């Protein structure tokens, strides 16, 4: 998985350590022949996006609906395809056979009505199940988490997650690419987009739902057990659509509360004279046009220049740009980096920020990204197309020293407890 | 357009006369000429075109009034209040009457009454042109009040819908003027009354669309 791309940077994509999905467990389902064929080749290990192994209530109810439909379809498939083969062999005109005419049958109304009505009845049965499941999925579950709601914002080409603790309409903190949810409770997702239409999809937890600018869509998710569940944007959203992923991380309620508490703490300001402090200064002079780390801006959203200006409460700048306030069309905002070191993935959840097992920072990835973001994720069309528009992080032309300082600063970005 | 068959051409009298009594479409399975059937099919298809534009307009009229952040902007107020209903009513009436003159022209042609036919045809052109002039005036007035094509979703949808209708009126006028020119050349006779009738179908359809637009766009709140 470590590979050299463009001979420059060793870019490490997300490691395949999905705790729950990692258990090799074969799904045994009586499905179509082709699906059996498929499953023979694929245990769940190494299939992080599979739709066949639900890990949450919603995904399970979809699964339980679709498997019988697959069975019915499989029976019809066998019936028709073997039927065609059977008819072809039985009624074919053999070589040298005399040209004797078969009986000229023009039809049989009763028979034809039969094979009009019987499929209709089978489909009616499927329709009943479909409607029942639709109702389940669209109703708000009784045990919906009341202490947290997540506002999901899609943008070219990453996801922001705004946490609304207590579901009171105010955003309490913001994270990106990794969505942390508690296990055992359905969590309400309120979703929109800042630019084009995206689609939010964590296959193990629920079906997908589009997020469109100017519209709000809702989805709820519940994970049965702790685990990391990969997702992928599934509505074509432009250049790096294929690189727009997200990670849902389910934590036990205790761990979740601890994580929330950590996110609510303020970030420490590094001591003067350290590399990290120089990194903070670089950050406030270079990065805060787009990025925010809660507490390093003044209340009017300009970066602090002296330590006196430091105001830990001034953390609303990014949220002011939230599409939940107004419909902004073109991407401008970038991920909120507060407590960056609590995340394991970055750059559209495609690259490893920290090792899931050891927690070690992947310095290569971070430095490479700071050096030339376009190398990690296509963000502007080919130069041959004669235009210069771009999305996402531009190449800030940082010096190696600045990069080192920034990495030093970023590695301090964690709540005290973490 | 009625096209005489061979036998018809051979037996037809040199000038006008009784050809009108000959049923033009009797050679086809449906008894309708290809041209007339084709025109009706086209008009059926046009229903979907105008339906789409009208639905777009309705959706965006409502959106503009309710979309968060747009509730009380002056642009919204501009949206409906720029309409001058009495003025548009008169235009609608003018277009409606052009349908009458059109049908009278066709009727006169079936009798090969050239003078009346030309009069009614000219009246139709005049009324149609008046309607179009009224629309141009209306557009100019709206733009002066600040409602340009790109101002908001309402204005884009409004101008596109009424503009498409206006384009249809314009094409209709060209057709009618061609007809008039033909009649001056003496080439529009009773036996090709169906040509004028088909042109008339198109004209009436344009009118019918306006009947819908007048109510749905201008009058219903």
């Amino acid at each position: 998985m470590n590979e050299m791309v463009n001979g420059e940077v060793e870019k490490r994509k997300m490691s395949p350590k999905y705790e729950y999905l990692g258990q090799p467990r074969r799904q045994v389902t009586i499905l179509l022949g082709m699906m059996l064929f498929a499953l023979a080749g694929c245990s769940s290990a190494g299939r992080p996006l599979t739709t066949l192994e639900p890990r949450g209530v919603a995904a399970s109810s979809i699964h339980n609906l679709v498997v019988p439909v697959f069975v019915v379809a499989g029976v019809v498939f066998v019936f028709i395809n073997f039927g065609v083969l059977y008819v072809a062999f039985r009624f074919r005109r053999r070589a040298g056979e005399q040209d004797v005419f078969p009986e000229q049958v023009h039809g049989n109304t009763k028979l034809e009505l039969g094979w009009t009505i019987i499929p209709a009845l089978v489909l009616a049965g499927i329709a009943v199940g479909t409607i029942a499941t639709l109702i389940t999925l669209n109703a708000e579950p009784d045990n919906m988490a009341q202490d947290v709601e997540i506002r999901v914002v899609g943008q070219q080409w990453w996801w922001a997650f705004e946490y609304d603790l207590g579901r009171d309409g105010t955003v309490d903190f913001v994270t990106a690419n990794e969505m942390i949810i508690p296990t055992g409770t359905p969590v309400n997702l309120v979703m929109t987009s800042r630019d084009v239409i995206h689609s939010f999809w964590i296959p193990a937890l629920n079906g997908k739902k589009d997020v469109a600018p100017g519209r709000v869509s809702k989805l709820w998710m519940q994970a049965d057990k702790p685990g990391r569940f990969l997702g992928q944007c599934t509505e074509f959203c432009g250049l790096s659509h294929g690189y727009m992923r997200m990670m849902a991380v389910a934590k036990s309620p205790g761990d979740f509360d601890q994580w929330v508490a950590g996110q609510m703490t303020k970030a420490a300001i590094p001591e003067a004279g350290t590399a990290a402090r120089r990194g903070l200064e670089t950050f406030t002079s270079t990065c805060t046009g787009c990025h925010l780390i809660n507490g390093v801006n003044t209340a009017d959203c300009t970066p602090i220049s002296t330590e006196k200006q430091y105001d830990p409460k001034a953390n609303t700048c990014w949220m002011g740009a939230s599409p939940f306030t107004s419909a902004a069309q073109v991407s401008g905002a970038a991920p909120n980096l507060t407590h960056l070191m609590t995340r394991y993935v970055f750059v559209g959840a495609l690259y490893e920020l920290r090792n899931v097992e050891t927690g070690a920072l992947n310095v290569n990835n971070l430095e490479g990204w700071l050096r030339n973001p376009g190398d990690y994720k296509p963000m502007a069309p080919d130069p041959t197309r004669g235009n210069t528009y771009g999305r996402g992080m531009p190449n800030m032309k940082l010096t190696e020293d600045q990069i080192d300082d920034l990495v030093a600063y970023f590695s301090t970005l964690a709540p005290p407890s973490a | 357009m009625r096209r005489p068959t061979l036998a018809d051409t051979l037996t037809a009298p040199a000038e006008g006369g009784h050809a009108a009594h000959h049923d033009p479409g009797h050679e086809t399975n449906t008894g309708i000429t290809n041209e007339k059937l084709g025109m009706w099919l086209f008009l059926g298809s046009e229903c979907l075109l105008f339906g789409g534009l009208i639905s777009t307009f309705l959706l965006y009229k409502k959106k503009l009034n309710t979309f968060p952040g747009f509730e009380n902007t002056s642009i919204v107020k501009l949206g409906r209040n720029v309409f001058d209903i009495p003025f548009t009513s008169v235009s609608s009436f003018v277009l409606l009457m052009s349908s009458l003159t059109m049908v009278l022209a066709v009727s006169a042609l079936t009798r090969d009454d050239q003078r009346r036919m030309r009069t009614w045809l000219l009246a139709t052109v005049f009324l149609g042109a008046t309607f179009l002039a009224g629309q141009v005036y209306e557009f100019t007035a709206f733009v002066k009040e600040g409602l340009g094509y790109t101002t908001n979703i309402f204005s884009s949808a409004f101008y596109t819908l009424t503009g498409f209708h206006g384009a249809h009126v314009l094409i209709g006028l060209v057709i009618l003027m061609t007809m008039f020119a033909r009649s001056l050349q003496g080439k529009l006779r009773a036996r090709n009354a169906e040509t004028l009738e088909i042109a008339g179908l198109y004209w009436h359809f344009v009118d019918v669309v306006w009947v819908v637009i007048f109510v749905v766009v201008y009058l219903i709140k």
Partner: protein
Amino acid sequence: MSVETVATATAGHPEHAEHGAEVHESHDRTYVKIAAILAVLTFMEMLTYFESIFPDAIERYFALALLVLMSTKFYLISAYFMHLRWDKPVLRRVFLTGIVIAVVVYLVALTVFNFWNGPEVMPR
């Protein structure tokens, strides 16, 4: 599609149109009458604009009334001026198919857009 209905028109033996020139000649007066009705209907439509002359109780029914007036005008023009009343049924069916598909499909589309309900509000 109204094609199946065309089946009734026997091929090869086209029925002769029951309307001939006499229809056109005798209809001029009808056309004028229809136009007069249309003018009155248009006037009635315009009246709804002057809300103040109507009692409030009636105003709610304006939209419905306008739609009825509109449909009547539509019918009169297409039936009389466009001769659908007298012409072959296949033409009526073709045109009606277009109208019905347009109306049904676009009404369903607007319904899916929540068009008939109150304003949709972005939740905060």
